[in-house]
């Protein structure tokens, strides 16, 4: 049985309510932080814990916090990224709807450490009902003196606001999120300056994922050093994984970093194996934008080592034979899945979600989608596969924000690992019998 930190009280009925949350040890970490620790000591704990951003990039949280500029007389902000727009990822939603107070407690501790007196939760538009849950929890916290002026009599003030997005994938990118939060069109900003210097309303801002901020609570509870003992190497602590696809038990699982991928997929405690006893074909390990890996490479690295659920192990081999832990959106595909169709779906998504600001992504995502559609229709040529490869290489790394990469990586990986399947679509039209389905999905083409 793996150790649980974030979801340890998940099974308790009514844990979303403040009373139950408090009865089960809630807000003790916050009290400890505000009453006995200094902001600097808190930052040290977070650094010691080795916590890395859970939104996808895996940037060390303590380091991110230490970059925050602290000019005199300028407010600082904490913004929680609850946009969770990466396809295949639904862990933040689960956390917020089940244990909203964990996020709020984490936000108070983090804001105190950062010296912020206003904090925002930016919730994606599709999670409208989640915003209601959060607002209710915030109201409860205000009523009990856990938020607002002079929290717990410590003299520290904090206000938390919930803002709902309008359903754009791009608003999960931190600077686009800030633009949207300011009431503007959600276009990513050109960096530098980074949000730590000039973020929300031009003030120093830290943008963190929901899970990252929630993880601050157990870190303060047990101490950074203790937290760092969990996990493996530089991947410390636990991680929420959103498991979906052709598995027997899809859902959100909290795992200790370092769990073997094979155990995660096949053990009864987690995914419970592939549906219908079929064979596994491929896995997208960290949300739709990370490279897809075929079974042999997701279970074992190129060197033959067992692949583990950690930033380093999944990244082993770079993009040639490895992938990324990303946001933890773990999509499993069985032997009957068409990689080409799956890629088309992803490409259609990125085309639809490109903000249109910079040329390579705006024009390239649409082009890739059209070529894939052509291949699915049975009109593709072998040249088109090379063209796809070339277009993705022209997008990757040339764009303002990572959406360009997010659109390019899946294309590159699918061609790299499943090229014969693309060739089959081109040379053997029989293999595309049920393509009609995709006309319905995409009436615009």
């Amino acid at each position, binding site marked *: 049985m793996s150790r649980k930190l974030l979801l340890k009280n998940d099974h308790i009925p009514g844990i979303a309510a403040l009373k139950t949350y408090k009865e089960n040890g809630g807000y003790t970490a916050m009290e400890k932080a505000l009453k006995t620790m200094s902001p600097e000591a808190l930052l040290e704990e977070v650094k010691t814990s080795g916590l890395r951003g859970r939104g996808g990039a895996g940037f060390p949280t303590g380091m991110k916090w230490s970059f925050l500029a602290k000019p005199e007389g300028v407010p600082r902000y904490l913004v929680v990224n609850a946009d969770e727009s990466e396809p295949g990822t639904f862990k933040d939603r689960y956390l917020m709807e089940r244990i909203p107070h964990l996020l709020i407690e984490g936000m108070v501790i983090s804001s105190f450490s950062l010296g912020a007196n206003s904090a925002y939760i930016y919730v994606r538009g599709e999670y409208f009902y989640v915003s209601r849950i959060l607002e209710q929890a915030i109201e409860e916290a205000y009523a009990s003196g856990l938020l607002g002026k002079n929290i717990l009599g410590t003299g520290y003030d904090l206000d938390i606001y919930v803002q709902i997005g309008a359903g754009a994938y791009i608003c999960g990118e931190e600077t686009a999120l800030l633009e949207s939060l300011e009431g503007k069109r959600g276009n990513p900003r*050109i960096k530098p300056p980074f949000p730590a210097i000039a973020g929300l309303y031009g003030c120093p801002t830290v943008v963190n994922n929901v899970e990252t901020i929630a993880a601050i609570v157990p870190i303060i509870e047990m101490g950074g050093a203790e937290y760092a003992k969990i996990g493996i190497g530089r991947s410390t602590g636990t991680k929420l994984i959103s498991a979906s696809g052709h598995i027997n038990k899809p859902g959100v699982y909290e795992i200790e970093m370092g769990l073997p991928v094979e155990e995660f997929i096949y053990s009864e405690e987690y995914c419970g194996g592939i549906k219908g006893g079929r064979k596994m074909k491929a896995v997208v390990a960290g949300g739709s934008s990370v490279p897809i890996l075929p079974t042999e490479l997701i279970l074992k690295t190129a060197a033959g080592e067992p692949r583990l659920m950690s930033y380093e192990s999944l990244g082993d081999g770079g993009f040639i034979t490895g992938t990324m832990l990303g946001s933890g959106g773990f999509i499993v595909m069985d032997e009957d899945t068409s990689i080409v169709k799956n890629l088309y779906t992803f490409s259609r998504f990125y085309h639809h979600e490109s903000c249109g600001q910079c040329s390579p992504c705006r024009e390239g995502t649409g082009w890739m989608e059209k070529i894939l559609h052509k291949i699915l229709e049975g009109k593709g040529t072998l040249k088109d596969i090379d063209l796809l490869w070339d277009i993705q*290489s022209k997008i990757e790394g040339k764009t303002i924000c990572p959406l360009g990469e997010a659109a390019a990586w899946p294309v590159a990986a699918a061609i790299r690992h499943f090229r014969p399947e693309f060739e089959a679509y081109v040379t053997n039209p029989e293999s595309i019998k049920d393509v009609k389905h995709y006309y319905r999905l995409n009436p615009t083409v």
Partner: protein
Amino acid sequence: MVKLTIDDIPVEVPKGTTILQAARLIGGDVTPPAMCYYSKLKTSGGYCRTCIVKVEQGSEKDPRPIPKPVASCRTEVAEGMVVRNITSPENLEARAGVVELLLVNHPLDCPVCDQAGECHLQDLAYENGKEETRYEFERREFEPIDIGDKIKLHMNRCIMCFRCVKVADQITDGRCHGVINRGDAAEISTYIEKAIDNDFSGNVIDVCPVGALTDRTFRFKSRVWYTKPVDAHRDCSKCCGKVRLWNQGEEVLRVTARKDQWGEVMDNEDGSTAWICNDCRFDKKHIKDWTVEGPSEINRHSVISANHYDTLRNIKADTLRMLGGKPHGEKVDLGIGALDPNNQHKQ
């Protein structure tokens, strides 16, 4: 001052200068093309990605290379930085890729476009692009719309440089003009096709690098290379009154602001930008309205200069086309450059 090298050419610039500005000080081939950056407009640049360069060494202190190509127009220089533009084949390949993508949805209707001959996208494609497109699908299409009675918007030709949006934000009163929709469906628009109605709105035409925003008073009157540009001025109560007239004989076909070698509106003596008002641009179309100063200085590589230089006066345009190996209707400036023995890449 900060020292850096661009394509092995050392240059010294004040702190805070961008790589592109530093490259413009060197001039010539090493200057990356810029489609969206406009030095006279705040926060412009970074969108089109044509000015990307490779930074081989980040700075003296931190000699690591920057892993991805950077937009030179929005990246500040650092002491000891080593930048590669045309000396990096990889970078040129990346730029060619951006150019190809910029043209994916462009209608390539140069033969009927008023901008042809002074179009930055034409130059860019000519200098950095590939001979043929690999794009075989339908291009996105919009209906041309009139924004006001003087300006035409051809959204099909737009490359989303955001320059006109910044003009509307920064030099005209009131925001009247922005971007709607997303991705490759994004378009420049006024609020529900509302007319742009203020004294400086015509400047959106001057900043547009392509033929997306054109002057309706000049529409289909002439190809630019059949007009002769002269600098002129008048006393104007609204603007500096310093303009460029595009004449055919005594007839003033078009009035624009004066532009420098980078295609940007020039500065006044006091350092302000010489934007012109709509009265000067659209209504003063008689040579008597103006005090003519003399012929405008035009980059001799430009197709516009073709009819105005002694050495070329006697060479017929058709001969030039033949020598340049270019079919009718395409740019002929390669021929001119090759023919001119004094051509030392003077800007």
